[in-house]
């Protein structure tokens, strides 16, 4: 079973995303901010990270930059999932090493096609 770390400071978003991902066959863990996500990845590198941008303590983009420098940190497919929906943010995410990008609001179909596109489904 493939693993996905869901990183979002909103409990509701984490719950919704988790439900969709579990239906797609992922084993999910959750983190509330970039710092928690770093710890989770240090303990166990997931196959995928669904990543919010704006979070307290450490933002998604900062987490991503650090993740890509960690040992094994090139491995996970990182899919942003954020209300930031302008070209500049998307480009910044891609150059920081994001594999896909979801603009909120999302539904299960969007999550599914994005995970297909990064080759996890």
């Amino acid at each position, binding site marked *: 079973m493939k693993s996905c770390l869901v990183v979002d400071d909103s409990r509701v978003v984490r719950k919704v995303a988790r439900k969709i991902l579990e239906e797609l066959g992922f084993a999910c863990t959750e983190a509330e901010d970039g710092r928690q996500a770093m710890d989770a990845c240090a303990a166990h590198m997931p196959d995928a990270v669904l990543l919010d941008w704006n979070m307290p303590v450490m933002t998604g983009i900062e987490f991503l930059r650090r993740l890509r420098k960690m040992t094994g940190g090139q491995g996970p497919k990182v899919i942003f999932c954020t209300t930031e*929906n*302008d*070209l500049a943010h*998307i*480009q910044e995410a*891609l150059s920081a090493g*994001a594999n*896909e*990008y*979801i*603009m909120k609001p*999302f539904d299960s*179909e*969007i999550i599914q*096609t*994005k995970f*297909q*596109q990064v080759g996890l489904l």
Partner: protein
Amino acid sequence: MKVEDFDMFSVMLKQRSGLVLTKDKAYLLESRLMPVARKWNLKDLEELAGVIRTRKDEAVIKDVTEAMTTNESSFFRDQKPFDQFKAVVLPHLLQARAAKKHIRIWSAACSSGQEPYSLLMLMAEEGVKLAGWRIEIIATDISSEMVAKAKAGIYTQFEVQRGLPITHLVKYFKQVGDKWQINEDLRSKIQFREFNLLTDMAPLGQFDVIFCRNVLIYFDQPTKGKVLDNMAKLLPPDGVLYLGGAETVLGVTEKFKPMEGQRGLYVLTGAPARVAV
């Protein structure tokens, strides 16, 4: 709705667009034609039916026909057909058409344009291989509203997230307010036109590939057969026909047969079942 009104609408729709409307779909008439009735200042479908019966107003009939089409589409819909295009169809054409360096493709029920634009982006990604080639994409639909939307190439955030890789969005679109518009240089490469599949196709010319996806499902068997027989006349011996995932030529026409090993792709009967690559 009165039985005679339902019958009038269904006979008219069948004749105009091929749409088969069964009694269990009567609710569709209600929900889709009420806006048309309102637009023409008519109280309800009964009045709308009356106007069509007595005045035979072409503009009203056209509105009704268009309102009853289902225009659901998405970028790289089903993905596989586009993978096949890249892996099988395009390599064959690059070899077989090397002398004239000209390929003509028809997206025969293009709806809001995602299908032809997906093809265009796919070919743009192939880049150098197509340098010096003339690629013509003719994209048609019966609905003038859809053709206009396709031409404008403007999509909602929701639409650009269905099937479109983010790298393509960045590369081929620009952001306009809360919408996304496909770049001008791509838009100008497609010829969009209104065209009814039930009419004479000969004026469209010859094609190397025809995409006719997710439209025959709305027609009855004889209409499907007629459309496919006419399409067969537009293809050279090594031409390729694409149908949607729920569509087939089997039991519908003798002119086409499935391409070996390539689900959803069809070749002319008599042509080799495999294309040379």
